[in-house]
């Protein structure tokens, strides 16, 4: 039994993303952010995007290029404090921002990936972040109903991929990537290393190949990955 080959070239992968799409982007700060796929999405120019990402990167980097290019309608995020440009766009009403507690964003994405409709949590009860959310009682405890999140596309950054789309991440570049890998109709991963099927230890794979649709080998690593004083 052999497994399908999912490698492709970057422009073929990103050109699929239409105006109005919902797009998840891996990464927490710099590590795990698919900077090269994001650059291609900027070139491609799809508009009115809903972006789901832990943060908005920093000014002049990653997500910010999509914001600069006017491609983003809405941002679902946990913290955008390192990107003053994103904060300004939000404050001036040029983009809509939906904030979510960080671990709850992770769980909502994971729930979407797991084919659940939502999760019940007591996080943020009584705070501004509960606004507009419905409640349900379970075993005598009031909980917030947090609906599952899915996207049309997920763009991921892997350290190593095989041709079937099995993915491995390193260190803190894992973060939201394996969760988003489960939660989108089309999952596109950029990878620093591409290996033949069978080269990855089956116990060490973080995202099973069946979740991944397309794999793009990076020719060079984005300069955003340079180690610099922040």
């Amino acid at each position: 039994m052999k497994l399908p080959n999912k490698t492709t070239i970057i422009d073929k992968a990103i050109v699929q993303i239409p105006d109005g799409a919902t797009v998840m982007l891996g990464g927490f700060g710099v590590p795990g952010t698919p900077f090269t796929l994001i650059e291609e999405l900027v070139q491609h120019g799809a508009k009115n995007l809903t972006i789901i990402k832990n943060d908005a990167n920093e000014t002049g980097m990653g997500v910010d290029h999509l914001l600069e290019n006017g491609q983003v309608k809405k941002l679902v995020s946990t913290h955008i404090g390192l990107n003053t440009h994103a904060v300004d766009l939000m404050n001036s009403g040029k983009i809509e921002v939906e904030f979510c507690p960080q671990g709850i964003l992770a769980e909502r994405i994971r729930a979407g990936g797991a084919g659940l409709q939502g999760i019940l949590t007591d996080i943020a009860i009584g705070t501004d972040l509960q606004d507009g959310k419905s409640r349900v009682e379970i075993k005598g405890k009031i909980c917030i109903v947090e609906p599952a999140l899915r996207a049309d596309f997920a763009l991921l950054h892997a350290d190593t991929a095989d041709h079937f789309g099995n993915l491995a991440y390193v260190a803190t570049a894992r973060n939201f990537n394996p969760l988003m890998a489960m939660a989108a109709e089309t999952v596109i991963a950029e990878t620093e290393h591409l290996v033949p099927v069978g080269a990855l230890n089956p116990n060490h794979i973080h995202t099973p190949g069946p979740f991944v649709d397309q794999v793009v080998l990076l020719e060079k690593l984005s300069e955003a990955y340079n180690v610099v004083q922040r």
Partner: protein
Amino acid sequence: MLSSAKAKMVARMIARAAKDIEPGMVVNLGIGLPTQVIEHLPADIPICLHSENGITGIGSALSMDKADRNLIDAGGAYVSPVPGTCYMDSSVSFALVRGGRLDMTMLGAFEVAMNGDLANWKIPGRFTPGAGGGMELAQKAKKVIVLTMHQDRKGRSKIVRKCTLPITAYGCVSRIFTDMAVLDVTPDGLVLREMAKGLSVDEIVKATDAPLIIPANDMPFF
């Protein structure tokens, strides 16, 4: 034990079912008849088999002397890995099923109704082992195919107008392979698509509780 003639019909059914698996598919083969489909999949077609205990990329069953004690399928059979195999925990394994990444499952059945309802997990008062992963497979695989004997041991049709047993999932089945026929579930009802060599349309209609739609074209044999 099945008679030799019956056994041959079953073997042909399994070989025929294998042809419905298309290149690139992710497929879960249920315990029993479906598991045997694996031996009929051509090696050169890219297919990813999934088992719900936490594995994607499954090769053939292994003999005892070659088995890995930590590597079984959901039915408990020792299986082999393939290049590209991945192991995962039970939550990720079912995320794959419920999240829409399972293209097809082949399942056994106690009863299948003409509208695609499936009953395969419980015979009240007689058999209540629990549903295992069956409900999720039946409810969420993109395509649910049933492999079953056409009739039970008492000669009663397992292809019924309406299920009498507790339901596993409603309206989920799209195609049924039996030792006698290939049937498609359509909005108009069950359509006879192919029949086992040596049988007539009349014999199949008589053996089936649910009404069958018989297309006007020549009926292929398998």
